[in-house]
């Protein structure tokens, strides 16, 4: 990393303002002048010694006291060199504008729109800078600014969506939407050809059974072909990032359950790992094993859920029932483990909530004995079925270059032939102590992603089995009295534990003043948490890099040219969950 920083400083002496290396967390951030962002970004993307080809996320932080109030943070990632870099640029309050990097990383389009929506920073040169999560007519301002109250400014109380019975229904004067409002959903003008072309705007959603949440897509159709697909996000936006600025670190864990509600454990794990990286605490070995086992169980649950719903959306009903049968077995185990089935809240900062019982280990082993058979059973139902092949082969194809440029991760990226799995690249938990493989696809179509998810389920079963065999004895929560509440049975017995207990639950834990980004491989892709801590008990800024949101940025690219009946497959191929997408 050091040679690259030196090259950067000699090549751009006036652009690079400072370099901060965080040796404890192995992170480097480079502060640059905002007006020279493009040349630095272009260099970092193209230069053979840098090759930061993957843009993980764009985040914005508000510092109201500073002269240059807003900070835009670009989280770059180099797939060939396996390293990360943070690029930071400050913009002032009176003219919060910065150049857009959509020309360098295609995935920046959605990420920049989110920054604009939440913080009000305009990106010059952005092709379609509109609000993305908040409603288009949202007039209260930019919600993630520090001077914006968390409860809003009262716009919500004026809603009149409940019709009053004593009033006559409002007369609809013109049913047509003005042409100006349609413009955002129109494709750029196509080269004129001899073919007759007549476009139709079709509104799909927000309530559609196969959108896995509340998602609206405006499709521009030419006959049955999709010319442009514009996803309209934000129907499930609950403002978790704003909410967590007012919560103590421990209190955020149950809120992360609600991000990707299909795989709550994965969210817990990602968040808890980010906080642990911030605090710099080490986890006992048994806790690491339990975490890995539970995360892999959740991966199986997530992929089973995907398989069932994807097959159901395409038209095969049986698979759905069968996958839910196995999912039920795992959910019962979760229930036994932590008392809930979906909103689990099982991980704790420094460990886990409860220990495995011998009975649970036995149940898990019995499940693993039969599970590969069940996966074979699903395969026998659909893997060679001609309808399934016809509806998934060569549908939603994305090349490896495009997938990287759009920032895709997880099975979507691996389906295109890029073997990027955070569990292998930056091993956490005990993934480096067990033997497993990363399945990689070839064609980058839905069928390859299906194959990858099936294979990942088998690999997860392998990981769980090895972990169960190696499971050591020991404590399940780290011993760090200033951050972690003492064991409950000690609380009423000795004074010191009682004092720690009271202090941690009333004041919260106070991490050092730092910032960190921590990525975890969730079933859907790279789930990252970027936390800025100012040394108080609450995060100054918490940014969630959710795979579903980033994947939706590639939706238009992947949907163009397909038939309208394929649009369902294209949604499903990302394994999208809107709770995570809209946060």
């Amino acid at each position, binding site marked *: 990393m050091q040679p690259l920083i030196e090259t950067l400083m000699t090549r751009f002496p006036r652009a690079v303002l400072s370099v901060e290396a965080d040796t404890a967390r192995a992170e480097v951030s480079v502060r640059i002048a905002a007006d020279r962002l493009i040349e630095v970004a272009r260099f970092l993307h193209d230069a053979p010694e840098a090759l930061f080809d993957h843009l993980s996320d764009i985040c914005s932080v508000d510092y109201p006291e500073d002269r240059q109030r807003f900070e835009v943070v670009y989280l770059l990632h180099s797939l060939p060199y396996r390293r990360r870099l943070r690029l930071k640029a400050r913009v002032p309050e009176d003219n919060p504008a910065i150049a857009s990097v959509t020309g360098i990383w295609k995935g920046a389009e959605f990420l920049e729109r989110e920054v604009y929506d939440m913080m009000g920073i305009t990106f010059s040169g952005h092709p379609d800078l509109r609000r993305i999560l908040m409603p288009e007519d949202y007039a209260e301002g930019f919600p993630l600014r520090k001077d914006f109250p968390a409860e809003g400014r009262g716009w919500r109380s004026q809603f009149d969506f409940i019709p009053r019975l004593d009033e006559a229904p409002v007369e609809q004067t013109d049913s047509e939407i003005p042409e100006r409002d349609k413009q955002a959903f129109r494709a750029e003008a196509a080269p004129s050809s001899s073919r007759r072309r007549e476009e139709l705007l079709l509104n799909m959603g927000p309530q559609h059974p196969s959108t896995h949440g509340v998602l609206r897509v405006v499709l521009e159709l030419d006959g049955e072909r999709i010319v442009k697909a514009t996803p309209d996000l934000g129907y499930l936006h609950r403002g978790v990032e704003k909410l967590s600025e007012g919560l103590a670190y*421990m209190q955020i*864990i*149950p809120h992360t359950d609600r991000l990707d509600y299909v795989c709550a454990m994965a969210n817990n794990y990602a968040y808890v790992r980010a906080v642990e990286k911030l605090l710099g605490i080490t986890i006992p070995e048994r806790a690491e094993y339990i975490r890995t086992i539970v995360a892999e169980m959740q991966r199986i649950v997530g992929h089973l859920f995907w398989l069932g719903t994807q097959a159901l959306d395409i038209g095969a009903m049986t698979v759905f029932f069968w996958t839910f049968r196995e999912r039920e077995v795992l959910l019962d185990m979760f229930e036994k483990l932590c*008392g809930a089935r979906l*909103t689990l809240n099982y991980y704790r900062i420094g460990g886990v909530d409860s220990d495995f019982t011998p009975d649970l280990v036995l149940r898990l082993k019995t499940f693993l004995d039969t599970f590969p058979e069940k996966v074979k059973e699903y395969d*026998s*139902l659909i893997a060679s079925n001609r309808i399934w092949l016809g509806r998934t082969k060569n549908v939603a194809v994305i090349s490896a270059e495009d997938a990287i440029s759009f920032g895709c991760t997880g099975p979507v990226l691996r389906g295109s032939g890029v073997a990027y799995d955070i569990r292998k690249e930056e091993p956490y938990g005990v993934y480096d102590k067990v033997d497993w493989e990363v399945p990689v696809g070839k064609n980058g179509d839905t069928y390859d992603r299906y194959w990858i998810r099936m294979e990942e389920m088998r690999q997860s079963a392998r990981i769980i089995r090895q972990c169960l065999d190696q499971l050591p004895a020991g404590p399940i929560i780290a011993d760090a009295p200033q951050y972690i509440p003492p064991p409950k049975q000690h609380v*009423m*017995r000795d004074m010191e534990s009682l004092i720690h207990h009271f202090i941690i*639950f009333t004041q919260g834990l106070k991490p050092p003043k730092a910032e960190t980004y921590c990525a975890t491989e969730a079933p859907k892709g790279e789930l990252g948490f970027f936390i800025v801590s100012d040394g108080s008990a609450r995060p100054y800024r918490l940014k969630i890099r959710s795979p579903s949101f980033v994947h939706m940025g590639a939706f238009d690219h992947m949907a163009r040219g397909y038939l309208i009946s394929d649009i369902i497959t294209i949604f499903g191929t990302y394994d999208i969950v809107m709770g995570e997408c809209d946060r």
Partner: protein
Amino acid sequence: MTKLKAWFKTIIFYEILVGMKATLSHLLHYKPITLQYPHEKRALPDNYRGMLALLRYDDGTEKCVGCDLCEAACPSRVIRVVSAEVPGEPTKRYSKEYYMDMTRCLFCGMCVDACPVDALGMTREFEWAVYDKRQLHLNKEQLLAIGDRSFPVREKRLELQHPNVAFFNVSFGHVPQKPN
């Protein structure tokens, strides 16, 4: 030969036959896993995170000491505690009023983790659908009633469990002595 085989498989719908074989084998080994829910109910585990309840000691006194820790730990501000001194016993406190707004509860169990005297418990009740949201604003009596019907086995008073905890919630004059 392989071409002929593939052609033959295509015309006899071989993959459908394979799929139907899997489906039909389930017809033979049919074991229903569905529960007829309102009539039969699942056995829930002991640590199930259901409705919250306030608990009592075996002599019928409330466990809650009104320390507000649950209020501080709650991530969605469900709980409101008004604590007061026990009349006539200046070292002892209790919760004079205790409210829970269950419409906002996340059922995360943080309040139960936070309670130093185990005065809160999560029951196995989950059928709490009501017609009026206001019925989910529970006060202390309702929460104690839930605890009474869900936890019939009550703990001994804390002072009796381990008599060296005399620094918290204990008025020294009234400490019942541990029976020998």
